[in-house]
C-alpha cells in the first residue's frame, strides 16, 4: 500500500502515529499548521515508536514518529529529525549528592554500590529506578554507559518519564534517569528533584542546545521513501524555524539546519 495522504475534495488529512514523547509536540505543530492551511487535518496518534515505524512501513499511517534513531533493520525508511532530547540522571532534591562520576553511575546501576554512604551521602540503601525494555531512553542510557540491561539491578521499573519523576521525587533514596526537558520543567515548577551533571557538564536544555551535553537522542519523523505532497510539506514545516517556539515550549531542542 503506497504511503499517500488521503486527499478528498475538501479536506486533506495526514495521519501520524508513534512515540508518545513526540506526540504532544507534533500535535501542537499540527494545530498551528492547520490554522495556516485551512482544510487540512493533521491527526496525531500514540502507540509507541515501534508502532510508528511499523505503520510508516505498512502505510497504515502517512508518517511515523520515533523518539530514537533508526536501527539497522529499519534502513529502508527515511528519518527526518525535528528535535533533540537529552537524558539525564536525577536524584531527590534532599539528597546531599550533587554529582556522580561515570563509573559511579555504572556501579550504582549494576548493584556494586548499593548504599548512599559509600558515595558520601546518608546511610540509606539506594533505590535504583530503571526504564522498561525497548524504551528509547533506556537504550540511550545503556549505550552511553556501555551496559546491558540484564546486568542492571533495578528496584523499580517505570514506563513514562513522569512516572520516573514522581518515583524519584517521592523517595529520598531514589536515583533514576529521564528526559532532560521533563526534568528541567518539573524541577523549575517545584518538584523536589535534582538533575545531575554528566561528566561535569550541567544537565540543562541550554547545555544540550550548545551541543555540550553528551547523552542525547533524536526525535524523528519517519517515512517510507522520500515524502511527497502534504507529508513533505508538513515535515518541512516541522523542521522550519517557525515552530522553534513550540519545540522549546515542550522542552526539547530544535535542530540547527
Amino acid at each position, binding site marked *: 500500500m503506497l504511503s499517500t495522504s488521503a486527499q478528498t475534495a475538501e479536506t486533506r488529512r495526514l*495521519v501520524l502515529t508513534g512515540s*508518545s*514523547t513526540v*506526540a*504532544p*509536540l507534533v*500535535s*501542537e505543530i499540527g*494545530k498551528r499548521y492547520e490554522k495556516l492551511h485551512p482544510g487540512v*487535518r493533521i*491527526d*496525531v*496518534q*500514540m*502507540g509507541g515508536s515501534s508502532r510508528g515505524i511499523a505503520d510508516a512501513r505498512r502505510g*497504515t499511517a502517512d508518517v511515523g514518529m520515533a523518539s530514537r534513531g533508526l536501527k539497522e533493520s529499519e534502513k529502508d525508511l527515511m528519518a527526518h529529525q525535528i528535535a533533540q532530547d537529552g537524558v539525564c540522571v536525577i536524584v531527590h532534591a534532599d539528597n546531599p549528592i550533587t554529582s556522580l562520576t561515570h563509573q559511579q553511575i555504572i556501579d550504582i546501576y549494576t548493584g556494586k554500590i548499593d548504599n548512599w554512604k559509600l558515595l558520601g551521602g546518608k546511610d540509606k540503601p539506594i533505590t535504583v529506578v530503571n526504564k522498561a525494555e525497548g524504551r528509547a531512553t533506556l537504550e540511550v542510557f545503556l549505550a552511553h554507559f556501555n551496559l546491558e540491561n540484564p546486568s542492571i539491578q533495578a528496584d523499580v521499573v517505570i*514506563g*513514562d*518519564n*513522569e*512516572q520516573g519523576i514522581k518515583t524519584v521525587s517521592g523517595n529520598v533514596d531514589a536515583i533514576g534517569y529521564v528526559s532532560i*526537558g*521533563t526534568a528541567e*520543567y*518539573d524541577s523549575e*515548577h517545584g518538584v523536589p528533584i535534582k538533575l545531575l551533571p554528566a561528566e561535569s557538564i550541567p544537565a540543562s536544555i541550554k547545555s544540550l542546545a550548545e551541543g555540550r551535553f553528551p547523552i542525547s537522542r533524536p526525535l524523528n519523523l519517519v517515512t517510507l521513501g522520500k515524502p511527497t505532497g502534504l507529508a513533505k510539506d508538513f515535515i518541512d514545516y516541522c523542521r522550519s524555524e517557525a515552530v522553534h517556539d513550540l519545540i522549546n*515550549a*515542550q*522542552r526539547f531542542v530544535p535542530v540547527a539546519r
Partner: protein
Amino acid sequence: MPDGVSRQGQHHRIREMLAVTCIWATAIVVSLTFGWILLDLLRHGLAHLSWAYLVESPSDAGRSGGIAPIIASTFLIVAVCMSIAVPIGIGTALLLAEYSVARSRFGRFVRRSLDALAAVPSIVFGLFGSTLFCIYLGMGFSILAGGLTLACMVLPIFIRTAEEGFRSVPDEYRRGAAALGISRSATLFKIIMPSAMPALVAGFVLGIGRALAETAALIFTSGYVDRMPESLFDSGRAMSVHIYDLAMNVPGGGKSAYRTALVLVAILLLINGSASWLMHRWVRHGAT
C-alpha cells in the same frame, strides 16, 4: 428467666453489636479513602477551574485552555458504546433469564464466554479493537471504533445485572400474562422489562462508569486527536486518555489532569443522580 435463654440472648446481642461495629467500620474506611482521593483532586484541581474550561479547546499541549472537544468526544464515544451494548445486552439477558435455553449447553456457553470477556485486560481490548475495528473493518482511529470496543467491555457487566433483574421479576406476572393469553413478546416488553427497570438502570449506570473509566483501550481505538469531532469517523480524545496524557506524558500537565478528573467526577455525579431520579419517578408513577 432460665439461665440458658438469657445466655443465648446475650450471645446474640454481642454478635449483633459486633456486626454493627464491623459494618459501620467498613463504611467509614471506604468513605475516608474516597474522601482522601476526592480531597486530593479538589486540592490540586479546583484552582483555575472555571466555566471557560468547559467550552474552550486545549492549547499548549493541554496545559492551558479547556476541554470542550474532549468532553464532546467522550460523550460521543459513550453514546456509541451504550447504543450497541444496551440492545445486545438486553437481548442476551432476556434469552438467559426467560427461556429454558439458559440451562442448555448454549446458555452455559454464553455465560462462560461473558465471564471470560469480563476478564480480558484493557490493553488487550485496545489491541484487539485496533486490529478488528480500526484496521480490518477500516474505521481507522475513530470514535466509532472506540465506542464499539468499549461496548465489548461493558457487555458482561450489563448483561449480568440485567439478567439478575429479569430473574427477580415475580413469576405471578408471567403466569398472569399467560392466563390472559398475551404473547411472549408482549409479556417481555410490556410487563417484564418495565418491572425490571431498576436493575436495567443500575446496569446502565455501572456500564457508563466502566466506559468512562477506560483508558488503555481507547488510546488505540478512538485515539489522541483533541480536535472537536465532526463525525463518528473522526478520531477523538476521551477524558480518560486526556488525563493520562497530561499526568504521565506532558511535563507540567499535572494541574490540568486534576482539573479534568474533577470535571469527570462531576459528570459522573450528574449521570448517576439523573438515573436515580428517573428511577424514582418511574417506580412511583407505576411501572406496570
